């Protein structure tokens, strides 16, 4: 059996027809008028709200300009040929970018509320709002998960981030770290950031970073992430540690498509410090530079293995610290890894 919804509650229909909604204020549906109308008429009203006749003979409302009759004369003869067509008519040019006339503000706020159940309309409107621009979504990106082979070591590295949110406000989770195969994790950090779009291409991000290695340390984070001109993905942040140390980091990478699946990615990373941080063997100034070139093949958009080369150099006093500790201050590495997202 088919349940037939009441398509048109006769009461509401009558309201529409009998009550001059023009006379109603926004917030008061014409209940009383409708009831009166209902009492008067026994049979349900016919549905059409507007006349069916093809050439619409519109109702004239007080204060409205009368429609013009079809042009009775030859316009060429009137010399309109040379008229600028922005200047529309015989001196009655339309109002440019004008607000709607007062009558456009009359009647119910939501026309459907006068016909269908108000609460059903309210929830349908809520749903519509959510469905047309109100969605939230997210992703998890493994930007680099790689092995690095150099003269001195065989190391691994991860660099991942995930986000969830709407168009403007998002929550980010980022983590990166590295270590030696067979050894321990040397560096590991996790960031939780609140992100707000501040322009078409950039987000402002603020939150906390916790280092798990080499020792537990917390930082406040303030950064920007986005797409710079010439299609460089940029992520730059300042970190204020619980020891009061201020450091910074800028990462930038560019995807150059060779073919639709083969992508060459140059990548740069700079680290800075506002002060010497002895326990981390860091000197004030530019502390470290990394440059890499990765060639990846997108088996699917979501999954791309890559190979590449990387160069890493500690700079300035930081390099001196490294040399003093018997480590190399710079070096090349061969890289292989995967980029993936879901």
């Amino acid at each position, binding site marked *: 059996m088919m349940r037939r919804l009441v398509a048109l509650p006769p009461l509401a229909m009558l309201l529409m027809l009998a009550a001059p909604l023009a006379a109603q204020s926004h917030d008061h549906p014409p209940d009383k008028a409708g009831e009166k109308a209902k009492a008067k008429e026994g049979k349900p009203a016919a549905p059409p709200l507007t006349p069916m006749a093809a050439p*619409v003979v519109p109702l004239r409302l007080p204060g409205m300009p009368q429609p013009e009759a079809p042009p009775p004369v030859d316009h060429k003869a009137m010399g309109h040929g040379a008229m600028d067509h922005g200047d529309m008519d015989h001196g009655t040019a339309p109002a440019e970018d004008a607000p709607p006339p007062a*009558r456009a503000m009359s009647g119910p706020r939501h026309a*459907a509320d006068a016909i269908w159940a108000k609460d059903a309309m309210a929830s*349908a409107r809520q749903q519509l709002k959510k469905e047309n621009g109100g969605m939230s979504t997210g992703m998890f990106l493994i930007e680099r998960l790689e092995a690095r082979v150099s003269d001195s070591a065989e190391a691994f590295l991860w660099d991942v981030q995930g986000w969830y949110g709407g168009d403007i406000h998002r929550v980010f989770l980022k983590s990166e770290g590295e270590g030696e195969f067979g050894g321990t994790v040397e560096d590991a950090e996790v960031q939780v950031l609140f992100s707000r779009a501040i322009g078409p291409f950039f987000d402002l991000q603020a939150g906390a970073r916790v280092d798990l290695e080499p020792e537990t340390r917390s930082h406040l984070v303030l950064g920007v992430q986005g797409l710079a001109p010439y299609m460089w993905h940029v992520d730059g942040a300042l970190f204020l540690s619980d020891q009061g140390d201020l450091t910074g980091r800028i990462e930038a990478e560019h995807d150059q498509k060779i073919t639709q699946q083969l992508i060459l990615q140059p990548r740069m990373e700079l680290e800075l410090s506002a002060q010497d941080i002895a326990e981390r063997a860091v000197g004030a100034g530019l502390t470290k530079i990394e440059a890499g070139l990765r060639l990846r093949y997108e088996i699917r*958009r979501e999954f791309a293995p890559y190979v590449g080369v990387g160069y890493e150099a500690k700079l300035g006093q930081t390099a001196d610290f490294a040399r003093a500790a018997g480590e190399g201050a710079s070096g090349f590495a061969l890289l292989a890894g995967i980029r993936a997202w879901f």
Partner: protein
Amino acid sequence: MSRIIKPSMPTVSRRGLIASTAALAAAAALPTPAWAKGGSMRHVKKGFGTYTGEDINLAIAGAHYATGGRSGHAIAVDGMIPGPLIKLREGQDVRLNVTNNLDEDSSIHWHGLLLPFQFDGVPGVSFPGIKPGETFTYEFPIRQAGTYWWHSHSGLQEQMGHYGPLVIEAKDGSDDRFDRDYIVLLSEFTPIHPHAIMRKLKVGEHYFNNSMMTATEGDMSGGERRMWSGMRMNPRDIADVSAPAYTYLINGHGPADDLEYLFTPGEKVRLRIINGSAMTFFNMRIPRVPMTVIQADGQDVEDVEVDELQIGVAETYDVVVTPPDGSHALVAEAMDRSGMGIASLTSHKGHKAVAPSLREVPTLTMADMGMAGMEGMDHGSGGMDHSMRDKNLVPSDVEVGPGVDMIAPMPVDRMDFPGLGLDTVDHRVLRYTDLRSKAMNPHRMPERTIQIHLTGNMERYMWSFDGKNFTSVTDDPIRFGFDERVRVKLVNDTMMAHPIHLHGHFFELVNGDNPHDMHQPRKHTVIVQPGSSATFDLTADEPGDWAFHCHLLYHMHAGMMQVVTVRPFPQEA
């Protein structure tokens, strides 16, 4: 539930072969059984039956669809994709009883129909929607004639097959002039759930685009390439979703399904072309067979003979062809040329026409950036970045925030542009400037003008009007006074073409210079070319609340939607 289909109205002459014949012919040739063997999910019947009369019952339900090597979950109406052809007659009354057998809300919007707003079928605007298990009755008189269609206005159901054609025969019998009358409904099938598509558009960079500008592709100069990348734009950003995800369909048939339209040489064949796709602009052509356009968006226009036309999402064109003996390819090539829908228009049953190969992928130009007036200037330096988003160029009510990545510096009207990729072909192509309404429109001068900016951010996949997505303007509709005559200028501040649709009305395209033109074509959907403007005159004579949106489904879903209110309701005379 028992369904009663009223017997068809008496058919006139050879029009007995109407509309669904082609689809049925092809369906009969398919080995697929009508219903699935295992499981409860129905297999979709491709093509459609014809429903007529004053009482029409339709049921929406989940289904399984397959074409070529692709298959997946779909939504079908009465088990068909497209759903049944609803064939009505001007002047009749109709009651459409729509039952929702899905486990989510659904709806049907009657695209292009003039009707009381409460039966327009947009949940949250015209009515509350149809709950699972419920039947809703749409009831209205038929006040017009022509080719239209219907589709779900709930969520992303339209992408899954919830659409169908609707034809209204004219009172005056003018439809009888043709020997055959066929529907050509264009759409897409994807095995990917539309919510997954939406998410990939939001998070993945050009996920479905396999023809992006690369180092090894295209003939752009280095300077031009630097300019585009300097602006963080890609000149191959043509279709957000395309062949990697889509199989293009004609009447529900993919290229592998060998759809046939039969004719006898010498016959005048009317093709009612409907773009019922979610995201695809199609280039329609029948190589070596000229097409005479007789209707646009269901409204009669003066005959225009063309060799090809581009049809935006939600538009319709009726064309008449008189093909010579043989098999001709009916080609619906996606605008980004990643794939095509194809059928055979043949006088020899079973003869398949040879499909042409896909043409070269088009590339966007300066005009698509809104710099049509600046062609030839030196822009190789990239120092022009600031001028691509100059807030002074838009009215103050346009919110130039993160959702707006560009403001067209010098947008011009491109009513004479035949569509991306068709400006360089060497045959006749339809342009909006070719369209002349057959009937005379009432002579009304606009009382005011308004400007609406089409805005977006490609990178974040945000789409909006005036920089504000629907979520942020639900309480601030676009207001018109009843019977007000308004000139509406749409300015496209993005590099994509948007098919903009106003419910419940026809507007007249301002496609010429004559301010007294009474033959401006009447349309319900207008393509606004990238970086360009398009203007229409609207007499707001249908009171109520109406949806106004981009008909690219995922653009609407991202927020490119508004509500238009027309007040007050007229008093009963």
